């Protein structure tokens, strides 16, 4: 489960920035096309934060869509699903974004 690996990276990065202060909140940006399940991150977060400055912190996950341009008809639209098609039926899409995996901000005591 790669979410565990992802979550460990989050805890490591946030702990470093916290510099011993208690972390109250962490906000992540997770693209809708990123192959990451927010629920799995939440599950791992509770486990991975134990005994760290993040223990008990609130986890906010912002899910952001990608966007696509259809090579067949030129339409541009928000892409919420990696298997989505264009309204014209086209599947030859040029994808932009949607695979973000970022720590946006954190709040410390």
């Amino acid at each position, binding site marked *: *489960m*790669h979410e*565990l*690996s*992802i979550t*460990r*990276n*989050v805890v490591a*990065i*946030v702990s*470093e*920035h916290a510099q011993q202060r208690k972390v*109250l909140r962490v906000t*992540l940006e997770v693209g809708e096309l*990123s*192959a*990451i*399940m927010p629920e*799995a991150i939440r599950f791992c977060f509770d486990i991975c934060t134990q005994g760290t400055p993040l223990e008990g912190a609130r986890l906010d996950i912002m899910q952001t869509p990608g966007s696509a341009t259809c*090579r067949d008809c030129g339409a541009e639209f928000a892409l919420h699903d*990696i*298997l989505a*098609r264009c309204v014209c039926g086209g*599947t*030859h*899409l040029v994808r932009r974004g949607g695979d973000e*995996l*970022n*720590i*946006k*901000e*954190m*709040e*410390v*005591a």
Partner: protein
Amino acid sequence: MCTTCGCSNMEGVIITDPASGAMRILTKAERDHMHAEGHPGHPHAHTAIYAPAHTHPHTHEAVVEAIPAALHGTTIALEQEILSKNRRIAERNRGWLSSRGVLALNLVSSPGSGKTSLLERTLRDLRGRVTMSVIEGDQETMNDAERIRATGCKAIQINTGKGCHLEAEIVGEALAALDAPADSVVMIENVGNLVCPALFDLGERAKIVILSVTEGDDKPLKYPHMFHASELMLINKMDLLPYVDFDVERCIANARQVNPNIQALRVSATTGAGMEDWYHWLQDLLHSSQMGRLVHSAV
């Protein structure tokens, strides 16, 4: 998604050279030291079990460049990529590989696709034509590395323990242990799993996804990220096609729905059918990477 694993801080990862039996178990403390911050550019010795021990200078980039944090009261804006460390190490691997003209390919599949058999046949058939070595990723056993070594090819085993994918840092260590010659190919056989390895760049030139006709032609739609990330799909076990319910054309159409640019080849590692097409693909890519290196060194 794989539910059995509990990856992957690299603690407990084992790197083995089956030729000598030399083994190295990475502890948390060791990993933390190897890429500790705050002392860039110093020379240090790796705890080398691979003779001869080597000392060389290299830089450790700081994990956080100049803290991109703006303080708003108690809120700290980070805007930091979660996988930035893996990405940076992958880029370092890529630079190291290209400076030597070594073509690295990341082979991904579900368990049971015949990936190791396909690799064995490739190593045997291309012996004398292409110099190849292998980084073999597996959760527990050494079996696959032994099979690879039986072909006369050098292999380094990485046992990830519970880890369900390889990461760039550990592959960098394995590359150093492998010490592949210039103008050769390194095949990285990833852990059998079509989800997690899609996310982790190892520094390879391309991902190749292997799918067998015994699996189901809808697999590209079930695991779209992996097919989106791969440049080539090898449809293996074509000799079994008459006995299974698998539509090759539909499989390719499904793969192109998630990745219009993916190339597809039909092969059988058992009979050898179609394998020459795969060898041509491989050699074309090797030549283009060699040309790239020549152009680069001429500038």
